[in-house]
């Protein structure tokens, strides 16, 4: 297969499956129908069915991946639009997110310790609520494995957005701001993408939560690992 054909197939295929998944989600707004989950699953099934290795798919779809960068940059737009609100809530935001990051590191460590997994895997699990590129870097500097860290980042991201609607009902998180912080602090950029469903205010605090989590975790995880190993 030539590269052009591969790129065409991987990109057009990904976009078509994504459009279909969005359409499906609009018809049945059920958390398990989240486009990130359905699109990912359908593509994995197709790749396995046709015996296509992931690396070849990624070669073809990498320009889509490349757009993730400017999309994260674009989060500055809702943040700017909502800057007055963010400034007003800066103290509760900072405290809530800082405590959230600490809880994530400690419970992640605790569960991994109880399960008795090797230290490198335990360390890779700590930055799970941080956006992928930062999580990989944190895992690297702390003695974990970046590729394994990505798996946990995906579980926290996709799992968090699927569970979020149930969770908000169960523990009564009703404000759009609370929902945004919850999603950004627990499920990084995948959570922030989901928070757009709750409006621009939710998306703005969610992007703040995601960014602050990344900043806090990049300092706290290496320190935590240093003192626990």
């Amino acid at each position: 297969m030539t590269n052009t054909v591969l790129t065409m197939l991987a990109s057009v295929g990904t976009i078509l499956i994504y459009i279909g998944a969005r359409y499906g989600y609009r018809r049945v707004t059920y958390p398990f129908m989240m486009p990130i989950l359905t699109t990912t699953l359908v593509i994995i099934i197709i790749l396995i069915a046709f015996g296509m290795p992931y690396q070849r798919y990624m070669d073809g779809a990498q320009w889509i991946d490349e757009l993730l960068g400017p999309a994260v940059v674009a989060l500055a737009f809702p943040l700017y639009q909502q800057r007055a609100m963010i400034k007003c809530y800066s103290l509760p935001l900072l405290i809530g997110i800082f405590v959230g990051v600490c809880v994530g590191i400690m419970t992640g460590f605790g569960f991994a310790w109880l399960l008795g997994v090797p230290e490198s895997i335990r360390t890779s699990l700590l930055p799970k609520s941080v956006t992928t590129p930062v999580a990989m870097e944190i895992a690297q500097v702390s003695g974990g494995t970046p590729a394994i860290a990505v798996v946990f980042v995906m579980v926290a991201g996709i799992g968090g957005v699927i569970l979020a609607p149930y969770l908000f009902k169960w523990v009564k998180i009703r404000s759009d701001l609370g929902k945004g912080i919850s999603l950004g602090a627990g499920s990084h950029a995948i959570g922030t993408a989901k928070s757009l469903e709750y409006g621009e205010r939710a998306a703005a605090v969610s992007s703040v939560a995601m960014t602050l989590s990344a900043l806090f975790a990049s300092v706290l995880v290496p320190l935590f690992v240093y003192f626990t190993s």
Partner: protein
Amino acid sequence: MSVKPFLKIAVQVVLLYGIYRVGVWLQVNLSLPLPGSIIGFLLLFSLLSLKLIPVFIIEKGSRFLLKHLTLFFVPVTVGVMQYDYFFQGKGLLLIPAVLVSTVLVMIISAKIFEYVMSKTKYSND
């Protein structure tokens, strides 16, 4: 339908991509601990706040990229398929562990936020 709105979005996306590349450049050259995309995000926010660029030159492109944010994650999330061996044995137990830990982060960060907010007497809207 005219082509103009699409052209506008395309030009703005190129501009946002440029800011992202500047972020990557800064990360590499100053060896910053943050990824280029986050640096670009902070950069764009600063540019907007300091009124160095007007909002309208990135608004349409930003809305477009954010509307389809999910799509841009797909190539990376599909990569989970490479680690199927990991989901056998003990690795499998780490999935519910990670989920419970994530849920705790989600509940506690939102609850603390709401608590501190109520203590500092902010009006709700």
